[in-house]
């Protein structure tokens, strides 16, 4: 049994005018335990929508999502099963690094000592012990994202959802964090669903890449990446996959260009 089973999932946004917008159209996807999945596609193709539907923050219009064989809507203690790493970190500016990481745990009935133990463990994992008493504004962008990752890890959920967590970072920091994420994912043996619109990133990270298509949001292809990690971005295998996906997306890009989103 797969961890996630998405079947015929559609999602309609109700817009103000009374009209509706089909953001996800007949999505079918299974994710197995421990897998690293990347959702890739042009802006507006519904990547975030799909992710937040998995996070139960959006309700499907039709279709079903099973989590551990159970209907997603019925999963109890949802926050112990699924955690999220947001784009632009979503840290609480008035809390220190340590407090940010511990914040989700404060609503669980845990002893203080347990909470400290957990946060220390994951702060070590993302190499932030030295910065634990700093406020987010004192951190660089990359460090903020590491706090966000540590926070999600500290929730010790099976599934971690990530919405373009590295989108706002510069190229160097970004590739560094990608490396780190892969090693953490291996260490902690989590299941990750990762949204990106960067082709290189998707190929570098994913076990399988879910290429999506806009208008309506559909799955265009699911591409397995078989090469061993750490992956060499200049290898021929990498190149080929990159060019294949580029070609796939090209048509979309032109479409987007012609319409010129306003």
């Amino acid at each position, binding site marked *: 049994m797969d961890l996630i089973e998405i079947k015929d999932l559609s999602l309609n946004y109700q817009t103000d005018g009374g009209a509706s917008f089909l953001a996800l159209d007949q999505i079918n996807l299974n994710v197995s335990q421990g897998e690293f999945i990347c959702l890739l596609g042009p802006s507006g193709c519904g990547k975030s929508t799909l992710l937040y539907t998995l*996070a139960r*923050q959006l309700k499907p219009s039709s279709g079903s999502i099973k989590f551990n064989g159970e209907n997603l809507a019925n999963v109890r*203690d*949802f*926050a*112990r099963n*699924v*955690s*999220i790493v*947001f*784009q*632009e970190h*979503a840290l*609480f*500016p*008035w809390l220190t690094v340590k407090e940010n990481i511990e*914040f*989700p745990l*404060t*609503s669980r009935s845990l002893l203080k000592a347990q909470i400290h133990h957990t946060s220390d463990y994951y702060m070590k994992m993302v190499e932030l012990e030295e910065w634990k008493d700093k*406020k987010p*504004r004192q951190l660089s962008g990359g460090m903020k994202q590491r706090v966000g990752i540590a926070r999600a890890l500290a*929730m010790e959920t099976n599934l971690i959802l990530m919405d373009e967590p590295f989108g706002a970072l510069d190229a160097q920091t970004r590739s560094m964090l990608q490396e780190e994420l892969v090693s953490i994912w291996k260490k902690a043996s989590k299941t990750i669903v990762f949204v990106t619109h960067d082709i290189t990133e998707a190929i570098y990270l994913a076990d399988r890449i879910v290429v999506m298509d806009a208008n309506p949001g559909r799955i265009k292809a699911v591409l397995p990446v078989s090469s061993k990690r750490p992956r060499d971005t200049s290898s021929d295998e990498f190149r080929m996959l990159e060019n294949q996906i580029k070609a796939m997306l090209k048509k979309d890009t032109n479409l987007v260009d012609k319409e010129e989103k306003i």
Partner: protein
Amino acid sequence: MKKDLSLVNKTFRSIQKIIPFILAIAFIFIVWQIGAMISNNATLLPGPTVVMKTFLEFIVSGEAIEHTVASLLRIVLAWVLSAFIAIPIGVIMGRIALLEKLLHPVIELIRPISPLAWIPLAVLWFGIGLSGKVFVIVIASLFPILLNTISGIKGVNPILLKAGQSFGFSQLRITTRICLPAAMPTIVTGLRISFGSAWMAIIAAEMVASRSGLGYMINDGMEILRPDIVIMGMVIIGVVGFLFDAVFRHIEKLMGYSL
């Protein structure tokens, strides 16, 4: 050596900060003196020297301090009360869209009415004691806190709310542990503005019935044609108001940084 220099620097810079303030006072005094000379009507606009003399008399007799303290006590009380009323209501209105939609017009309808107009009702409902005056000041100081609290809560970065939800937090926990701290800088700004409004309402409030306070002093000075007392009261209000605002701005800045 380096330390010494930085100390000199620091002293120098804090002196630099006070200079505009001193220049401002000098500027006002000069304009005032010229105004007094042009008006040439000592019964209505005495010059700075006359007012300074009255001020010294009032300092010596203790009245200046007494009136200032009396007014400040009323204002602080009303301001704290406003905060206790407005922050909870503001938080609730900011969180529950329907409630905001319903109550916002009520606020906007009542807000334009000057505290002055409320005096008769203040006397009727709260009497002429402290509570009547406090009510008049509350009318002036409630809305800035309320409106800033609502906008602060509504303006909380939605991603923080999403994060809170994803932690499995209850609505109450999201409100108190996320919305409230996130809105705090805006609320503090509201508190500062509100203090200013309260301070401006003191003359109206002390029309309710009083025996002390700067507003009383000014009202009384007007009645017995003692413009020196009136202007002294205005100067005290200006300076004390300025100082409080400066302190609040400092707090606001600190708050802003810590976020």
